[in-house]
């Protein structure tokens, strides 16, 4: 592992780490909606400052906070070019074949890129400051109202949390199997497509078998401990919401309202 994988949980004790995970998830949702609402220069400045503030509070270094967007530069460039050349044929600088480059298109492209960028960074901050299990608990909490209409939210949350919990195990197993086959003389670096496909089998079959075996063992273990899939399971550790949690939610809501206000003032603008 040369560098950290994107979005991996980084233990810490910042105010952002300590926030209740359900509040955090809700706040993320509101923030992402707010990002899409923004349509003015001032609005973007406020949003960028707001997210920078959160990043600083979380104690996560800038390169780590930004690494969610590391591999997306080409995506950003293509979005920008597509918008510039196709978005607005009405006020194009010139027209050539299907291409109609315009300033409107360019600015629109820029806003799309900025929105995706900001949404990725803020999501990355959430996953970097919240353990995966906490996120599934938060999700369970937030979808719990749907249980009144007959949706088994508890079981959905259980499936999600098991899936997330097994990612490191399976990753480790995959790594061991890859290494075992390599020392046996398997080649994964072949150029030919047929050989590449052939090289996948010694990996895929053991991984699937291991996964099925684990699933089987886990279901037996769960049953043996009395799991019946009933809803209303309690958590091992839970704490009541604190003033800080409500405060954080309030701040996010205020930013959202501010942006709505800015948007209303700024209705004439097109982007």
């Amino acid at each position: 592992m040369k560098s950290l994988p994107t979005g991996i949980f980084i233990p810490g004790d910042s105010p952002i780490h300590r926030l209740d995970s359900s509040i955090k998830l809700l706040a993320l949702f509101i923030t992402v909606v707010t990002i899409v609402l923004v349509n003015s220069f001032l609005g973007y400045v406020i949003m960028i400052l707001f997210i920078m503030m959160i990043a600083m509070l979380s104690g996560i270094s800038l390169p780590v906070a930004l690494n969610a967007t590391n591999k997306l530069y080409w995506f950003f460039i293509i979005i920008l070019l597509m918008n510039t050349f196709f978005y607005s044929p009405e006020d194009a600088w010139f027209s050539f074949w299907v291409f109609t480059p315009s300033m409107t298109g360019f600015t629109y492209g820029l806003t799309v890129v900025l929105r995706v960028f900001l949404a990725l960074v803020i999501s990355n901050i959430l996953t970097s400051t919240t353990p995966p299990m906490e996120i599934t608990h938060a999700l369970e909490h937030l979808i719990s109202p749907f249980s009144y209409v007959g949706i088994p939210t508890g079981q959905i949350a259980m499936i999600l949390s098991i899936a997330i919990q097994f990612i490191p195990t399976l990753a480790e197993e995959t790594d061991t199997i890859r290494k075992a086959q390599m020392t046996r003389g398997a080649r994964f670096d072949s150029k030919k497509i047929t050989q590449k496909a052939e090289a996948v089998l010694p990996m895929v079959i053991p991984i699937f078998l291991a996964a099925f075996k684990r699933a089987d063992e886990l279901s037996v273990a769960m049953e043996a401990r009395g799991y019946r899939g009933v809803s209303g399971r309690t958590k091992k550790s839970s704490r009541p919401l604190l003033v800080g949690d409500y405060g954080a939610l309030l701040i996010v809501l205020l930013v959202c309202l501010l942006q709505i206000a800015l948007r209303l003032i700024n209705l004439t603008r097109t982007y």
Partner: protein
Amino acid sequence: MSIELSRVSYTYSPGTVFETVALQEINLTIEDGEYLGLMGKTGCGKSTLLQLMVGLMQPSRGQIFVDGKDINGRDYVRAELRRKIGMVFQYPEIQLFETSVEKDVAFGLKHSGLSKAEAADNVRWAIEIVGLDYDKIRSVSPFSLSGGEKRRVAIAGILAAKPKILILDEPIAGLDPKGRDAFLDLTQKLNADGVTIIMVSHNADALSKYASRIIILDSGRLALDSPSKDAFKDLARLETLGVGVSQAREVAHLLSQCGFQTPADIIRYEELQPLLLSIARGGHL
């Protein structure tokens, strides 16, 4: 076929919050035909050391030479290393994937450059040496076998390439006593044929019986490196290193505490037995 490690260090996830130093400044030479036991508590760097030796990972600092050649050098051919060194991982049976035992064992020979006849010979030899009946088992699916048989097939798949160095990571974990002895006898037989054996195990009885040299790692450093008969002398130190000793050594130690004169290099049952007999006959006090 010697392996030489020169000031090898390894750090996981350097420069991040997950940074962990696994190995520090390891200097080690393993000669041809040795039977080396590698011990140490969980997380001391044993597995990292093994993986560096087979070239699955590159050391953060330092060099590793196999037969005098730097295996991480720019012009080193990895395939050469794969032919020389075989590695048996913990629970090797997970690597099985083919539709028949014969095909699975032959998998590693695909790129070895051996002719069909030679490869077939190797496969038969490997299946037989791990104690299975070639004609009976060759076309059986490996997944229909018992746990012990699966492990033997997996090990045959590594032996089929006839490696000159065999590295084993906890190979006897989860085997029954009979299977364990059979497997250890197999390693001894291979060693007698000139194969260098490097085995990680927590089983002090097994290593006392079979290994000629013991190496103990502690927090990524080489804590002990000596012939096996001297390795288990200092019980207090071994305790702090998290390493157990063989039952024979334990009994000899208890006897010496009771006032009997017992040499400190008794580590095998065969060495203990005459002593016990003479004590029982009333001598030795």
